[in-house]
């Protein structure tokens, strides 16, 4: 029996669930807003590297990417577990880790497309990739979307309140604690992604609190561990009734 990591039918169902009417509206609104802000800032202030870093770091990477990650990551599995229709999927002869991996690939793809592409365009609008800032943030957004998707997909299998839990991590931990407690920044997907951006951009253009080797190890570790544990959770999933 061959072992697949990608199942096209599961992928198609996940993709359609994610880009259903209303979810897609939010997924399109966020990047559109980023582009509008980028265009408005460029018109108001002209091309400026410092401004570009503020918009891409403060809005795109700190707010937009985690939110898209929460919507895509938890949305890839949460609603199915929530309304119980996941039993029909689990009853099929498809390995549960395959289901998780497929859903992760779709969630990552959706997050990456909806966050990295607009980040690149916004960066080009803001300063035309001067000091490689646009490319640096684009790669940071793409890498962060892999880790966020894995984390939030795991949350979707662990708790019924996955969206709230994901938002607590993204808002309270990364934004609030991250700005108050320096140690909290070491355990932040955003900072790990920033350390990559720091390496790619011209020296001094982007700064991160985490060194690159640590960041890469943590990013890979969190992604693999979260995916493995999500597969385990799905293997032993018990369906709870509506509270």
């Amino acid at each position: 029996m061959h072992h697949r990591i990608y199942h096209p039918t599961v992928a198609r169902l996940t993709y359609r669930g994610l880009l259903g009417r209303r979810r897609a509206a939010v997924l399109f609104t966020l990047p559109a807003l980023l582009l509008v802000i980028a265009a408005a800032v460029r018109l108001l202030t002209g091309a400026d590297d410092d401004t570009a870093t503020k918009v891409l770091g403060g809005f795109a990477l700190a707010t937009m990417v985690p939110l898209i990650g929460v919507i895509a990551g938890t949305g890839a599995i949460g609603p199915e577990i929530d309304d119980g229709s996941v039993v029909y999927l689990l009853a099929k002869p498809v390995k549960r880790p395959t289901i998780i991996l497929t859903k992760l690939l779709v969630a990552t793809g959706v997050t990456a497309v909806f966050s990295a592409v607009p980040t690149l365009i916004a960066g080009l609008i803001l300063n035309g990739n001067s000091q490689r800032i646009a490319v640096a943030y684009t790669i940071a957004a793409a890498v962060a979307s892999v880790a966020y998707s894995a984390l939030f997909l795991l949350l979707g299998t662990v708790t019924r309140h996955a969206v709230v839990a994901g938002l607590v991590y993204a808002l309270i931990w990364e934004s609030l604690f991250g700005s108050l407690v320096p140690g909290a920044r070491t355990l932040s997907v955003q900072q790990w992604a920033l350390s990559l951006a720091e390496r790619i951009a011209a020296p001094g253009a982007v700064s991160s609190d985490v060194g690159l080797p640590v960041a890469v190890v943590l990013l890979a570790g969190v992604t693999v561990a979260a995916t493995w544990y999500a597969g385990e959770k799905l293997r032993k999933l018990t369906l709870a009734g509506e509270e």
Partner: protein
Amino acid sequence: MPPETTAASAQDVIHNIGYRPYTGPRLGRGYARRALWSQSLRGAYGLGRSAKSKVLPMTLLAVMCAPAAIIVAVAITTKMNDLPVEYTRYAILLQAVIGLYLASQAPQAVSRDLRFRTIPLYFSRPIERVDYVLAKYAALASALFLLTAAPLLILYVGALLAKLGFAAQTKAFAQGLVSVALLSLLFAGLGLVVAALTPRRGFGVAAVIAVLTISFGAVSTVQGIAYARDNTDVIGWLGLFSPITLVDGVQTAFLDATSSFPGGNGPGTGAGLVYLLVVLALIAGSYALLMRRYRKAGL
């Protein structure tokens, strides 16, 4: 009481199995509306629901009150002459907690009714569409007011215990209450409108938080850039585009608050009037949209 059988119906009826109509008092529309309000308000703190659904709202209430208690304790022990945090600033500082509470409870208030199709059951009772919308809106606004006013009360009681000036503290406390009342109405309206769009609870949560954080993130980013460029006039107007900065603008203009905008460049009285009008328009608009949403009872 015997089955009511009249001579005429006795001939028509094949079997009289003794069904009786309800003849007790009927409490009417006003009572139903009040009941819906109080049950929704209790539900917003998980009262009358499972223990698991109490965890989140109660935790958020505790998180909301804890800093106030700490501030008061510090102010009393170190004998400060004034509280280190203004009453009007408190909600702005803890906006993430308020946002999470709204995002978790607004869908709870409306999405489940939509998802389990209980809306037609409500409307089979003597309540109208306006009663349902008003009761849900009032319940969520009251819940938010409890969440935001409780820490202010702790600050106020603490300030009086620390023997800070009674008149000044009372005035500042009253201004803080007006501000959080406005915030509660505004946030409850926006949260319900977004949550009522979808029968999926999880998606409602994400959509509500997206509206709050994305708008605030966008506004504060652009404000920061304007501040760095010394473009201070724009900062005051940019606040019009996110809910929490709207409240900040109104209280800066009318409630003696210090603005949390970059450099404290809040709107003056003239611009503050625009802020107030926008807030009131948003509250009225939320109500109108909710009324429109429930025009069709099914879904």
